[in-house]
Each structure stands twice: as structure tokens, then as C-alpha cells.
């Protein structure tokens, strides 16, 4: 990994990692005394890592969710599913590259997968429109949900978006309608739906594919009504001093309570999916293995419900969300 891919709080850990690697290279040449030193360094590294990660601020977790090496949908799909066949297009307008999906097999079980996809390099980022879907993306997702319902396949969804795209074409083609329609339809789709926020869950853009019987978040992901930057821009307008702007974003992240622990406490999500030490970007395979196990466990539970119970439970779950008082 290049230095530019380290977040500020990762640096001391990475430094030790580098030292360990250097020593390991030397040890290969037969120097046995190095081994105990390596073990000591590894202990030190693990202590430091768990110390740093146990004290991450909400804003730092948001940064981990956006880590340049963060696994995206198509990084996890080959590791989670036995196979996958991509399906394209909304049948009305276009094939949205920020929204992907198709048939997949999860440990032998046929399922339908839908997820948001970001790009890694400049070209890919543009191709995937930074993971920001147009209405045709939401309509493509809905087409796949209906396909799943028709052939009685459970739906597995990975949410990872900085928001639904705010553009002229998106408005012309009814971004609001597309999201609203998905939310309504997903409430009554007659197959199990498992949603996992794998990175960013920004507002309506996330909710547009975010209704499910089980909603989970990866340990270093965020999900909120608005991004910390958006919130900060509304509350404090434009700030020129970069230090102040950063402080505002930190405060906004704290105020919005967007991390998995917060959403668990508020009763919005059902499960936090642990990530390997240091974050999912340090070990894609390990992250996918943990996720796969939990998906299978949830799918097993949901598959035992009859359709009526499944739908009644889903409705009850969303009907009860909110905090109100009677005077």
C-alpha cells in the first residue's frame, strides 16, 4: 500500500508493520535472534492497534468507511458468494453503473444480490459515478427485487453510497419517485431481504435499497439522514479555515450518531458485523468470511418464517421506529 492510503490514525500502526516486515525479511536469511524481537513488535503493534481502534471518534469511523482501500461490493461478492452472474438495466432508460446486481449462490442457496458499487481509481470512480445512483439505478434494483420475488429467491443487499445523485437528469427522471417507490415495494416484497451497510449509508440514497427483514452494518460503516459534511454545511455554512471546517465535521459526526453502535442503541439495525483487526481494508478475505457466516445465519432464521409472518414482522419493525411523547 502506498503512503497516501493511510489515514492519520493508522500511521503509527503501519510504521510498526513495516518494521516487522523488514525483520521478517532479515530472519529469512537465517538470523534467529530476530524472532523474539519480531514477536515483541507484533505484541506492541496489536496493543497499539486495539488501543487506537477502541478510541476512534465517530468522524474517524466515517473515514474508515471511506478508506481508499475499503472493500466495495464487487470486492466482497466473489468472496461471499459461490458464484455470481451480473444482470443489467432497468428496462426503461439505462444501465446504472453505480447500482449492480444479479443472480448469486450463497453457500449453495440461490439468491439475488443487489448493491451499490464505487470505483477505485479515477476512471473507475467516474464510471461508477462515485457510487451515486440515478433513478434508473433504483429502478434496476426494483426490477431485480421483483425478479427475486417471482422466483422465490432471498435478496441480499450491500449498501455503499455517499448519496443518490443530485443532478439535472436525476431530477428529470424522478429521483424522489424512484426512491419512494422502492421503499414502498420493498416493504411488501414476499421474500426475505437482508441488508448490510458495508461502507457509506447516506440518507435516501441508502434507504432506496435499504428496507429489509434484517439490517446490519459492518463495524466501520456509517448510516444517517445526511453526511457529516452535509450537516456541517447546513449548520455552519461555508467555513474558510480548514481547521475549523474539520472541527465542524467532527462535531457534526458526533451529533448525527451515524455509527453502528449508535444505530444498534436506537434500535434501527439488528446486527453489527465485526471486521478484522484494523478494518476490513486490511484483510478482504477475513472480512468477507465473517460477513458470509452472519448472512447464512440470518438467512437460515428468515427462511423458516412463512410469508405472512415475514411481512407482518417487517411491517411491525418499521411501524414502531421513532421517538414520540404524548403530552
Amino acid at each position, binding site marked *: 500500500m502506498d503512503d497516501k492510503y493511510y489515514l492519520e490514525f493508522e500511521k503509527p500502526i503501519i510504521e510498526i508493520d513495516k518494521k516487522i516486515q523488514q525483520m521478517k525479511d532479515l530472519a529469512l536469511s537465517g538470523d534467529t535472534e530476530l524472532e523474539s524481537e519480531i514477536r515483541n513488535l507484533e505484541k506492541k503493534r496489536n496493543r497499539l492497534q486495539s488501543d487506537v481502534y477502541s478510541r476512534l471518534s465517530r468522524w474517524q469511523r466515517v473515514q474508515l468507511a471511506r478508506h481508499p482501500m475499503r472493500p466495495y461490493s464487487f470486492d466482497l461478492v466473489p468472496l461471499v458468494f459461490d458464484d455470481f452472474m451480473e444482470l443489467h438495466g432497468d428496462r426503461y432508460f439505462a444501465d446504472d453503473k453505480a447500482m449492480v446486481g444479479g443472480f448469486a449462490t450463497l453457500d449453495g442457496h440461490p439468491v439475488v444480490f443487489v448493491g451499490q458499487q464505487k470505483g477505485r481509481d479515477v476512471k473507475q470512480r467516474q464510471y461508477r459515478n462515485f457510487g451515486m445512483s440515478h433513478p434508473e439505478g433504483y429502478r434496476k434494483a426494483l426490477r431485480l427485487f421483483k425478479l427475486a420475488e417471482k422466483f422465490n429467491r432471498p435478496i441480499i443487499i450491500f449498501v455503499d453510497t455517499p448519496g443518490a445523485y443530485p443532478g439535472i437528469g436525476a*431530477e428529470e427522471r424522478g429521483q424522489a419517485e424512484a426512491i*419512494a417507490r422502492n*421503499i414502498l415495494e420493498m416493504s411488501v416484497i414476499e421474500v426475505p431481504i437482508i441488508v448490510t451497510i458495508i461502507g457509506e449509508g447516506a440518507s435516501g440514497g441508502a*434507504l432506496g435499497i435499504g*428496507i429489509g427483514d434484517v439490517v446490519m452494518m459492518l463495524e466501520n460503516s456509517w448510516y444517517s439522514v445526511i453526511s457529516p459534511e452535509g450537516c456541517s454545511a447546513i449548520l455552519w455554512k461555508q467555513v474558510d479555515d480548514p481547521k475549523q471546517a474539520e472541527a465542524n465535521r467532527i462535531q457534526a459526526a458526533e*451529533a*448525527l450518531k451515524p455509527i453502528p453502535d449508535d444505530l444498534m442503541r436506537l434500535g434501527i439495525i439488528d446486527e453489527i458485523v465485526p471486521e478484522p483487526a484494523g478494518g476490513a481494508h486490511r484483510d478482504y478475505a477475513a472480512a468477507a468470511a465473517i460477513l458470509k457466516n452472519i448472512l447464512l445465519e440470518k438467512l437460515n432464521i428468515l427462511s423458516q418464517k412463512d410469508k405472512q409472518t415475514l411481512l407482518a414482522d417487517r411491517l411491525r419493525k*418499521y*411501524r414502531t*421506529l421513532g421517538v414520540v411523547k404524548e403530552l
Partner: protein
Amino acid sequence: MVEWFKRSQKSIAGDEKRNIPDGVWTKCPSCAEILTVMSLEKHVWVCAKCDYHFRIPATSYIRLIIDEGSFDEFDINLVSGDPLNFKDSKKYPERIAAARKKTGRNDAVITGLGSIDGLHVSFSVMDFNFIGGSMGSVVGEKIARAIERSLDRGIPLVIVSCSGGARMMEGILSLMQMAKTSALLALLNKKRIPYISVLTNPTTAGVMASYASLGDIIIAEPKALLGFAGPRVIAQTIGGELPPGFQSSEFFMEHGFLDAIVSRPELKESIARLLRYMLPTESDRQFPL
């Protein structure tokens, strides 16, 4: 300040102050025509020259659309909690308290039962003066209960929307109100109960991306701002100017997302006519499908 410069009475707060001045005449912000308040009152605050619709209070829509004396308000005492312990320049409970003081209402929607030209309906109207008509848990819950009143009684649902979207200060819980209301509308669909969504200036973001977009029939007042993202955000994203008329009712209609644009004085009659086309009739009984 010299004493006699001060207003002796409390001024009308916020947008009402800007949009509905309390003089004997006012200037139309759209065409600059000078209009007397008396004539505006008669025309339910629509400019006679250019059809500009001044913003009117939520309660005015009840008088405009619901048969006189038939409205029975529900869930008046529902108030917001502060689940996030949200604080920016002000604490959220202080913001709520200020909005309650300003509007005399507990949150941003009025819901109840009433009749429109004799037809019983579950009616809701949003109040922009209460934190921009934003949808938090109370708005979501009151709309949910309004839908349930439709479901329970088998009567049509009419919602007049006016909102900047989800309420940021309730974070993810506001977002979930989109899910709560839309899920119940799915049940209304299944029971084939009519829902008319009326959009007024502005209806955007979280409200537009949930119940406001899900009517069997969607109508809007002329020249309202309607859309998903706010125009400022879009201009920033595309790094350019927005085309004229972008995100107006007329734009929305042109792109296929509205059934009709209806001027305020015709709202009641249009809604009643639409409902009669959808509700069961005598001929349904004579010639059941």
C-alpha cells in the same frame, strides 16, 4: 430605539412575516404587481395577475379544502423526543420549544378527519413554519396514524405536503419515517383506498422521496419547488447554473411526475372530483367487475 418605533404587538414570525405582510397592500414577489390584502384574502393569497401562490398557513388549507365545521383534529399532543441528544448552535429541545412558541403547534403536521364536499377523508397538512416542515418522528407518526385511520375506516387519504425533507436533528430516526409511512401506504394500495397527494411550495427531499410521491393521484400548486435534491446542492454538484424553471411544478409535470397542476382556488373541487372517480359508486354495485 425610540419607543414608538417598536411594534406594540408581537410580530408574525418567520416566513409568514415575509410572505404575508400585515399592511393593506403588498407587492407580488413574482410580478411586482401591487395587490391589496383584501383582494388577496378573497383569492386565497394567489396573485390575480401572475398566479403566484403566496405561502399560507397550514390551517388555511383546512379552511380551503375541508367542509366547514367538519374537521376533527387528532394526535394534537404528540411531541418530539430528543433521541440523539442533538446539539448544534442550539439544543434540539430548545429549537422545538421555539418552533412551538412561534406556531402554537406541537410539530410540523396537522392531521385529522373531515369531509370534502361531503366525502369523509383522513386529511393531513404540513406546516412549513415549524422547522421548515421537516419530518421527524412526530410527523412520521402522525402521518402513519393518518394512513391507519384511512385503513381502519376505509376512507380516502389526502395529504398536503410542504416540507424541506427529513429533520436532521433526529438523524437516522427521521430517515426511518420515510420507511414507516411508505410501508403503510403499501397496505393502503392493497386495500384499494384512494390517496391523493397534494404538493405545495416547497416539497423536497425526504418527504418527496416517500409519501408525497406515492399518491394514486399527485397534484401540485403552480410554480412550487418540487424535487429530490435542493437546487443549491445540484448547482454545486454540476458546477453550473440550473436551467430556468428547473424543479418547478411545471417541470415536474412535463417530466411525467404530476397528474395535474391545480390553482389554489380550485383545489377543493378538483380533489372532490378525483375522489368520486375513484370511490365505489352505485354502478359498481350494479355492474361489479
